[in-house]
């Protein structure tokens, strides 16, 4: 097993395009780190540099205690795990897992030990003599994983390994890969564009945009304390609601003008984040997650909230809660996510996750309560979060 370190790694292509800029990451021995970002953000380039498929333009790459900038891919002791493992219909599960060891000239006895150990971890011990056609979809995927496991690499590199699967199997395999990784304890670097995949699988998640690392942290910390507007909007589904308005201090705390409405910010929020004071009279981006909004009539007592008025446009009943969509006459904030579907010329469409006891209908006007303790603020110019 090994620690993988990227120290100020740059990737500049011959045409001058800089795909990755000073990327620094430390993937601890046995850790599962997920690199997530929108299309074209440089995440696959970063993975390919670790694998040795792309030359490194600057910085230093270490696997274990070796600098590997110029080490051949085959000598890096890492395994790329692909989305496209074929299973061979005439071959048993045992052979499907182990046949490639023949090519690596692994002695038969050792190969047998590795295959049986992989089968144990994958819970396929009772199926070793079966053919792929006799297995369930999930079991077949596990056989495919087995082919990577028997190589016993120091680190796994996975580039969108689930993108080829249908939705149901993808969810199943997410859990399976995370479990396997924990059991094997192999350092794993996983690349995806899917933030749900990232949040549910990684010990830590690194968010990258335009080749620049935005934040690296545990999934919960990323969600609760995003560093900037991009991370705030990118992580979470539905996305954090973002609004831009003029911030003004007043005797009860402060307020933000959001179109025709004014959002009151209670004094305790300002006391907890004195840095907000320097934005008095200036533009500021305000963010709130859907679950931190509710029907004001159903808010628990003791919770500090502030209200806005909304005219309901759309309801999505999810069972455990309902998603309420309503427009706010304030321009859409550009989160910087190239994959986001947002028309910047239109007004903001807000999403709130309401208690299912709430019964709003499209066209109704409701008071929406926002949990003050969970408000997010960002500098309009630097787009950085204001936490202090």
């Amino acid at each position, binding site marked *: 097993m090994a620690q993988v370190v990227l120290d100020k790694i740059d990737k500049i*292509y*011959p*045409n001058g395009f800089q795909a990755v800029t000073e990327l620094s990451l430390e993937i601890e021995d046995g850790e599962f780190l997920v690199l997530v970002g929108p299309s074209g953000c440089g995440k696959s380039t970063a993975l*390919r540099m670790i*694998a*040795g*498929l*792309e*030359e490194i333009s600057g910085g230093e790459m270490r696997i274990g205690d070796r600098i590997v900038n110029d080490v*051949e*891919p*085959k000598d890096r002791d890492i395994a*790329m795990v*692909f*989305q*496209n493992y*074929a*299973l*061979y*219909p*005439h*071959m*048993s599960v045992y*052979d*499907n897992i182990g*046949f*490639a060891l*023949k*090519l690596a000239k692994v002695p038969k006895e050792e190969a047998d030990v590795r295959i049986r150990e992989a089968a144990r971890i994958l819970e396929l011990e009772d199926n070793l003599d079966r*053919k*792929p*056609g006799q297995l369930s*979809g999930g079991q*077949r*995927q596990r056989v495919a994983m087995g082919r990577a496991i028997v190589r016993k690499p120091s680190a796994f590199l996975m580039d969108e390994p689930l*993108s*080829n*699967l249908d939705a149901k*199997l993808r969810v199943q395999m997410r859990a399976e890969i995370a479990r396997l990784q924990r059991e094997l304890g192999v350092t794993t670097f996983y690349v995806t564009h899917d933030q749900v995949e990232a949040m549910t699988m990684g010990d830590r998640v690194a968010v990258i945009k335009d080749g620049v690392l935005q934040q690296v942290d545990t999934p919960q910390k990323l969600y609760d304390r995003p560093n900037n507007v991009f991370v705030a909007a990118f992580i979470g589904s539905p996305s954090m609601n973002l609004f831009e308005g003029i911030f003004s201090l007043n005797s009860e705390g402060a307020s933000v003008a959001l179109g025709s409405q004014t959002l009151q910010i209670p004094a305790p929020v300002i006391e907890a984040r004195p840095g907000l004071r320097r934005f008095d009279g200036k533009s500021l981006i305000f963010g709130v997650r859907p679950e931190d909004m509710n029907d004001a009539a159903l808010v628990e007592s003791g919770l500090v909230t502030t209200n806005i008025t909304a005219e309901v446009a759309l309801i999505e009943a999810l069972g455990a809660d309902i998603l309420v969509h309503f427009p706010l006459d304030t321009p859409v904030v550009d989160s910087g996510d190239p994959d986001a579907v947002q028309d910047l010329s239109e007004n903001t469409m807000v999403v709130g996750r309401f208690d299912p006891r709430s019964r709003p209908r499209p066209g109704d006007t409701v008071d929406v309560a926002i949990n003050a303790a969970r408000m997010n603020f960002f500098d309009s110019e630097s787009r950085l979060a204001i936490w202090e």
Partner: protein
Amino acid sequence: MRIQLITTTDPQPDYLEFPLDTPLKEWDHPDLVEIPVGVHRHVVRFIRRGDRLYALKELPNELADREWRLLRHLGAENLPVVDVLGVVAERGNDLDDILITRHLEFSLPFRFLFTRSGLPQLRTKLIDSVAVLLVRMHLAGFWWGDCSLSNTLFRRDAGSLSAWLVDTETGELHPKLSDGQRALELDIAQVNILGGLMDLEQGGQLSEEIDPTDVVVQLRERYDALWDELTNEQAVDVSERQLIDDRLKRLNDLGFDTTEVMIKPDNDGSLIRFKPVVVEAGHHQRQLERLTGIHALENQARRLMNDLHSYGAWLASQTGQPLPEAVAAYRWLTEVFEPAIAAVPSELRDRREAPELFHEILEHRDSLVEARHAPIRVPEAATSYALRALPFAETERALLETDEETNAETDKASNDLSAT
């Protein structure tokens, strides 16, 4: 529903006749035919319309888009890939897209090469053709990511095979591939091909003489040798300038054209370092097409060009004067090639493509010459071939499923896998 089609000269099926809003595996239509396919993750079915076959593959939108884009690009670059014809998207009911390609005529899936008798000499050429295919793709900056025998189709090419890429789901285009990318590609190809051959072995379909591990080791050797020949910088003594011409000739013989040669003096001018810039495979193909209009594969074209040159030399010896190449080519076309093909009854012509037919007629002639110890002319060889050899050859325009026992298990497993 959105159906996006490329306009083609041959009329495509009217896809609206088919139940596009139901899963492809559930379709029932008289024009659907079964043909042998390798191991595929997605459902693949075939429609026959006249003498054409169309392959329909159901796959997620993102992958269909990628494949559509890459196949069009590679096709435009004259690389050996199947023709992509269209995409059916937005089918409703959460259904994946359908990618439509034209089935490659006269193509042989690898299982066919190993399970039919009479083809052992071609099996040995299989790895060569995959190595050439990989080199051509890599020169064009295409990283395949899933080279396997199931993702490749093979066409006869004058005693050899020409490999065609049929699946680009994992492909990536780059301005230039790094050594690491090429090495990884070969790792993947070796494992995939080893798996494909071992699967045949365990299904009792692989000759005992073939060792799958040896085969994939050869793949890397052949690839490396070809790549080095095409791309390596070479240093020669100034007195051995002809070595540059020799190298360029070797590249042409391998079927590759060069547009320029980078030459720089070295070692106080006593050495010349040079590196050819290889642009395109198909050297003989282009020559033959320019002179005769015949579209052939590379080895077929080389064979036909040799015959054309022999005929030109014979004509020159008859007149006592060398003939311009274009004149010799016209006379060879009208006096040799076309009569030979015309000697083959029309009902047998879908057994081989015309250039391959001509190659086999020449092979037949050689065997007659050897047997009779007397010269044989092409028209006589063509008549003999049409009577004695071709009737026993299989129709290869579109191989339909005939060996049910061989393929039933494969299909079942393929279909099972496609569910993953």
